[in-house]
């Protein structure tokens, strides 16, 4: 299984991308660094992240607010926040197809993290590290299924998402992980290993996608 992405499709913002995998599709945009839009948000030593996530149907609820806090945890350490002191970076996320029931958010968060990463690159925002997210479930037989379908998700015993930083083309440090359901310690450690491997398998394609975009953006003589 693989993913589809389109980078830089919006021209009114600094960076944008769509990201699609296993029936989950999301479009994100990044604008910044901007002047602070509300003075109370100004932080003297680092950037202020203004993140909003809009669901595919209905209006945002606590479910989306919770996704925002999780995304912020990932971005706070990966964006070079010190570089944009007293500035604001706006990140807009619009889900196009959730690909999962409303009880779950793993697939959406995976797509959001990956799409925001590509948008940040496209927007030229300085990052401290590359990162990538993936998700998986453990089914009733104790099997780990990477990037599950909605049906697999609904029948699963536990579901997990992990975001790793990437160094020298290899997944390196665990930035964020969230596991829900019932699972054992060994299962959790196995899941983290499998997510690591899964992210490695994506690497070459991500590189190619980014490289293609850079080639299109600049004139190389």
């Amino acid at each position, binding site marked *: 299984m693989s993913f589809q992405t389109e980078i830089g499709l919006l021209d009114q913002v600094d960076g944008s991308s769509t990201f699609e995998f296993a029936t989950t599709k999301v479009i994100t945009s990044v604008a910044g660094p901007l002047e602070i839009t509300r003075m109370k948000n100004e932080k003297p030593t680092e950037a202020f992240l203004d993140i909003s996530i809009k669901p595919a149907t209905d209006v945002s609820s606590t479910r989306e607010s*919770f996704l925002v*806090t999780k995304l912020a*945890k990932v971005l706070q350490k990966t964006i070079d926040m010190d570089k944009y002191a007293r500035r604001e970076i706006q990140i807009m996320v619009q889900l196009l197809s959730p690909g999962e029931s409303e009880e779950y958010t793993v697939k959406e968060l995976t797509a959001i993290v990956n799409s925001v990463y590509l948008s940040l690159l496209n927007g030229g925002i300085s990052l401290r590290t590359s990162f990538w997210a993936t998700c998986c479930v453990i089914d*009733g037989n104790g099997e780990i299924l990477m990037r599950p379908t909605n049906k697999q998700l609904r029948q699963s015993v536990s579901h997990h998402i992990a975001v790793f930083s990437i160094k020298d083309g290899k997944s390196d*440090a665990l930035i964020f992980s969230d*596991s829900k*359901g019932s*699972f*054992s*310690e060994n299962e959790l450690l196995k899941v983290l290993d499998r997510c690591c491997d899964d992210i490695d398998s994506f690497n070459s394609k991500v590189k190619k996608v980014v490289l293609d975009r850079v080639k299109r953006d600049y004139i190389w003589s």
Partner: protein
Amino acid sequence: MTDTHLRSIKFAPSKLALIAPDVTLKRYIEIGLRPSLRKFHEFRPVIVSPAGFSRYEKEGKSSNAILGSSVVKSGSTDVICSISAGVVEDSQELTNDYRLRLDKDIIEADEDENNSSSKDEDHRVNQYSSVYSVVEVSRGRNGPPTSEEIELSQALYETILHSGMITKESLNIKLGLKSRDSEGKPVIIRRYDSDDSDILNEFAPKKNFSYVLYAKIQVYSKTGPLFDLCYAALIKALRNTKLPEMYINEKETDAKVSALRARKTNKNDSNGRNGSDLQEFDLLCDPVSFHDLKIDEGKLSWSSTFGITHGSDSVLLADPEGEAEENIFEGIEVVSSGNDTLFSAVITGNIGEDDHAISKDQIKEAILLSKRRSANMIKEL
């Protein structure tokens, strides 16, 4: 010319913790202490007790709508949790009908993935229910909920839902029927009174009703990780929650009555509902009889939070508390049953520069500590 010297400014440790929490923390760790002066792996003492203000805990008749309550104290923090409930009509049967689902646009385009032939009940998540909680952290002023409060509420909801602690079945309402016996005295026939079950089957509404649980959690003088305390308060309150029995009056069961009522209903106030198959019932709560809310005892769990300091002497701090400790970004939050089962694990790490990465050993250590902590604390719930 006068010599100007840059005088060094001295701060009290508590002030420095506000200005530069990372520096304070580093200084403490260097001398082998933590700012809260507890041992590295020592948790705060927590007292969990029933609050005693629910309608069934009070002596004599009570008319309040609180069905379960608890108080959790830890240090200067108090958490008060109260459980209330509402009644909803199950739409399960309706939505399982393929034609109705088609009409109602419930069937989505990616049906091949959802596979319409598989029934919804097969799915694990469909067997479980949760409690809608609202967390309020008192800040001395009113205002819209902060992101912290929203995060707590949603995390509690998701953790309880996916742990499978509350089954949908335990929230189903077994409706009784209020009638008169041969002497003309009012009686309530219940489904489980075997003699009268035939009558009930005949008159009972075809629809199913179930309870929805709500929790209000109030936090006073917040210190340390709140999720742990809120989770304990919520589970304690759920464990002493009692649900009232419900019944309908005999006359309501007659289909003609409800049809009449349906016809009378104006299109304007029918709220878009279909008049033809409308059956309305006045469900009444029995003022006296009740039953316990069933909770899967095997899934009782306790939540523990750890902060991880970085640097070469990286240590795990249990229950980070105070300005310097709460400022630690990296952390692990584990909800564990005390044996080998975990219900939630959230790890927040850092990028792998300057020994900042979380190691596997630290994850293992945190899980081990949380298991021990859970084994101790679950008895309190």
